[in-house]
């Protein structure tokens, strides 16, 4: 068991290194001269040779490629990711820490909605398989899965803010502002989890232990909730765990639509402005997030499920 955990941790560290390298290489593969990009995004009207030279030196872009990678890596370990191209008075790390809490807040509130809605709905869909309720939910699931978040967001905004005048269209500042973006993000995941829970429960219903419980004369609701649902949720655990980094990285479009001042909006703005250092940190962050959550939930599942333990 311990050997397995150590092995997984080592592999993860290697993976994170690979992420840093890919992240650096990709950004540097862009054929444009970063110094020129800096001047352009700072809206210098005419980019003169003198100005390019000055910026190249200031950013240390005249070093060889690999040296620059090592320097960047060293600075990363010190949490020094440089300054934003577009706004030289702000550090990349400062921008990141400024926006991250808002994104986590949004991701968490979405996760809560996902859990509150999808577990009971998935449960009832499985219990009342092929009933009217199940069919309606399946149609809804189908519709929301195929609708992009951008459209869902704008439709919600039109309905709730413009027609019903219930909530402000966008921005942040209070509980009222977070409702629509959270619902929009949650929508996609809700449909995924409803399907997952429903199918898992249906699979579990065919298992021998259910038949045995019925023979023992246990209350059917008791069987459904404490045996079937519990066992189904266990196998959903990894999926839900992995959805946390997905939620955090998936807020991008929604944050932009609702002008939510989080990491996703920062990243989209950086992409439009060619603010490479921020894009670089964002890729790195999301990469590390996935590797970490993968590691954590692999280990947790290992501890929770004796069948997997015996396999490895």
């Amino acid at each position, binding site marked *: 068991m311990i050997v397995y955990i150590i092995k997984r941790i080592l592999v993860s560290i290697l993976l994170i290194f690979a992420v840093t390298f890919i992240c650096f290489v990709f950004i540097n593969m*862009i*054929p*444009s001269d970063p110094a*020129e*990009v800096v001047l*352009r995004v*700072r*809206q*210098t*009207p*005419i*980019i*003169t040779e*003198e*100005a390019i030279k*000055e910026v190249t030196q200031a950013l240390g872009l005249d070093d060889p490629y690999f040296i620059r990678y090592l320097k960047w890596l060293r600075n990363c370990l010190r949490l020094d990711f440089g300054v934003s191209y*577009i*706004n*030289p*008075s*702000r550090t990349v790390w400062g921008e990141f820490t400024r*926006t991250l809490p808002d994104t986590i807040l949004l991701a968490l509130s979405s996760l809560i909605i996902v859990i509150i809605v999808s577990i*009971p709905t998935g449960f*009832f869909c499985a*219990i*009342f398989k092929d*009933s009217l*309720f199940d069919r309606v939910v399946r149609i809804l699931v189908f519709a929301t899965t195929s609708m992009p978040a951008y459209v869902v967001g*704008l439709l919600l*905004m*039109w309905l709730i*803010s*413009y027609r*019903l*005048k*219930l*909530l*402000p*269209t*966008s*921005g*942040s*500042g209070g*509980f*009222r502002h977070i*409702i629509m973006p959270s619902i929009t993000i949650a929508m996609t995941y809700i449909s995924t989890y409803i399907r997952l829970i429903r199918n898992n429960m249906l699979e579990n219903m065919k298992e021998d232990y259910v038949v045995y419980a*019925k023979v023992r004369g246990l209350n*059917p*609701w008791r069987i459904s909730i404490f045996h079937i649902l519990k066992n189904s949720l266990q196998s959903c655990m990894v999926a839900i765990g992995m959805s946390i980094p997905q939620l955090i990285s998936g807020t991008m479009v929604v944050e*932009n*639509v*609702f*002008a939510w*001042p989080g990491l996703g*909006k*920062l990243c*989209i*703005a950086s992409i*439009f402005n*060619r603010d490479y250092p921020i894009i670089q940190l964002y890729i790195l962050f999301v990469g590390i997030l996935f590797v970490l959550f993968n590691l954590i939930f692999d280990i947790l599942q290992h501890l929770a499920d004796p069948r997997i333990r015996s396999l490895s």
Partner: protein
Amino acid sequence: MITKNAIKPFLILSIIVLVLGIFAGCSKTSDVETASNLNTDEATKMTREELVFVNFRDIRDLNPHLYAGEMYAQEMLYETLVTISKDGYEPCLAESWKISKDGKVYTFNIRKNVYFSDGEICDAHAIKANFDAIIENKERHTWLEMMNLLVSVEATDENTLMITLSSPYYPMLTELGVTRPFAMVSPKAMINGSTKDGVQEYIGTGSYILKEFKTDEYAIFEKNPLYWGEEPAIDKITVKVIPDNQTRILALENGEIDLIYGKNMIDADTINKYVNSEEIEIALSKPTSTRQLLMNSKSPVLGDINVRKAIQHATDKKMISDGIFYGLEEPADFLFSKTVPYCDVAIKPYEYNFQEAVKLLEESGWVVGNDAIREKNGQKLAFDILYNSDSVTEKIISEYIQSQYSKLGMSVTIKGEEEQSYRDNMKAGNFDMVFNISWGMPYDPQSSLSAMQRPVYGDYAAQQGLEDKTHLDDMISKIMVSTSEEERQKLYNEVLSILHEEAIYLPLTYECNKAVFTKDLNNVVFTQSQYEVPFAMMHFKK
């Protein structure tokens, strides 16, 4: 297993609970909302003193001596020596000025009793301190020719500032009227007398001050109590950050914002939607800049002047204006609109005339081949149009003219590239035809022409195949140092005529500045600077 009869009550009950739950959630929030709606209603009943403006991004670094901040916000906070107006220049921080006979020495009489919003006096010494800070970072500003000609800046006394140039330079006052970098910051806000690495605070002499801001969320500006000029009617301007176009429009319709303003903040579709609206008004400015296609005179096909002229005749600009811009951008006949200073030149536009285009091509020996594409000495009449893939408009125009030109026997390939590589290709001359937009007011025509002399934009590369390129550059240089109005106009006439005759610029439409706003707001106007939003002139209906 559970029987069907047992299921029904549970099913109904659970649906009821679910629906009630959803409604309970909604009604809770609606209580809160009704209360706040009331508040906003009450606020509107009084004459409104707060304007809510929107921008797609944050105000960023408002240090006016660098280029990274939002211009509209800089225009609110800071002022320059002179202001560029419709009829030339108006006094601002300088009450009056004199230009020496040789055109080299400018003496400014600085307005008395002007204070920065931190209480510091804005006299000739403070302005001199600003020039010192700007000159310290000279490389950044050499795109303004006057920086290269600058010999000295002196404050001879509290109210007199003298600027000496090494040679006369006629756009001097225009360049001094440009907010970046010639707006004045309080010397107290500088970091050891320098601004090139930032300022401590954004303190100017303008009609508003920056009261509060939250990065990426909002900025609040309030009237400057120390302002020397006429007091603005609106006390408070709040700028919200909303990056998404659709969201901005919904917020405007919802009454959360009052004004959307700017060339790229609103598309033609949206403007068109509000033409007959009862709650929302629109305003359009005079032409600010020219949307054009630039033809590369070095390209194997477009090197032939007859091909370029044929293209000029084969482009239906009226159709582009009506079909793509709903008539909001007028068709353009010339590189610069006639309303631009010095550009009312007697030249004949290339009319839309298909027969003429065919005639020109045949004169030049381009004959239709088997594949319906013209050719000459084995060279097909085929070329590329490069556009910025971020711009939907450019793509639509490309597709339209592609189909138009194919009727002439031209094979056009359209190529969209992301902005950076589009610009790189433009600068390196890797294009046959490319989308371009003139600099706009107040930089047109002098800065646009000046930039043609240097390999910084597509113009330089596109003009390389012209026989009289050196002659053109010489004349542009002469324009800048000319001291006589008459001589200057003559030179402009010649340069603009040559560029028109060579047919390398295919003007499409004149871009204009746009605003959509609530009907309560009055006097939403446009100034000579296309980036300024003149909040100080606006007021709400009583």
